[in-house]
């Protein structure tokens, strides 16, 4: 179902992931989060921005285990654990945060 952000329409796939990663604007994350009744904080943005950088560098969305490890390395060990990440993204940090970041569904994610 396409989503609308500031009057512009964005195509998504059947699971709600953005069809074209290059179209992404920060507003996309806001609209998607509002649909999930979630308010984005700086902590959420840290993860979203981290995922976009990861994709830029490696051309894939990381599996959640890899994301957890990499977040721990980049943002500190207190954040590199499932409890913290699931606290931020209750539908699963891999799936949900990648969706907000405009990335495809993570490889190896079931």
């Amino acid at each position: 179902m396409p989503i609308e952000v500031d009057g512009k329409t964005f195509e998504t796939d059947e699971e709600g992931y953005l069809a074209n990663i290059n179209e992404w604007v920060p507003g996309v994350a806001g609209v998607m989060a509002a649909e999930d009744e979630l308010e984005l904080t700086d902590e959420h943005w840290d993860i979203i921005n981290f995922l976009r950088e990861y994709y830029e560098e490696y051309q894939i969305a990381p599996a959640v285990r890899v994301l957890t490890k990499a977040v721990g390395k980049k943002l500190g060990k207190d954040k590199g654990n499932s409890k913290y990440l699931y606290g931020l993204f209750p539908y699963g940090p891999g799936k949900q945060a990648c969706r907000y970041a405009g990335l495809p569904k993570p490889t190896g994610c079931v």
Partner: protein
Amino acid sequence: MSDVKKFMYLNRRAPYGTIYAWESLEVILIGAAFDQEVSLMCMDDGVYQLVKGSDTSQSDMKNFMPTYRTLGDYGVRHMYVDKASLEARGLTQDDLIEVAWEDFETEEEVDNIVEIVDADQVAKLMAESEVVFS
């Protein structure tokens, strides 16, 4: 965990032109994400998969070369390259990408897990693996 198996992925095809290399890479990522002991062996034209500086802008394929560099993060410990295949194509280790590996718990680090092996080692490594995908 007792049911960890040693998986080896044997890649013998050029990275672009067909979908084999990309599909293989996705399977490697999935296998590694499930905590299996995964290694990659590049032979024949498969060695081109690890040559750095590929440019796919003139083709319709996504440049997935950067994705090989994430294999260390996924817990892949060894990326082997067959020496004879490399030499037959006029390539050396300098032409290949480097992939780092690190264990976050023990802080053990390996700067580069890409390793060139000769025919005897190839045979030995394959025999040691429980599952070989090609």
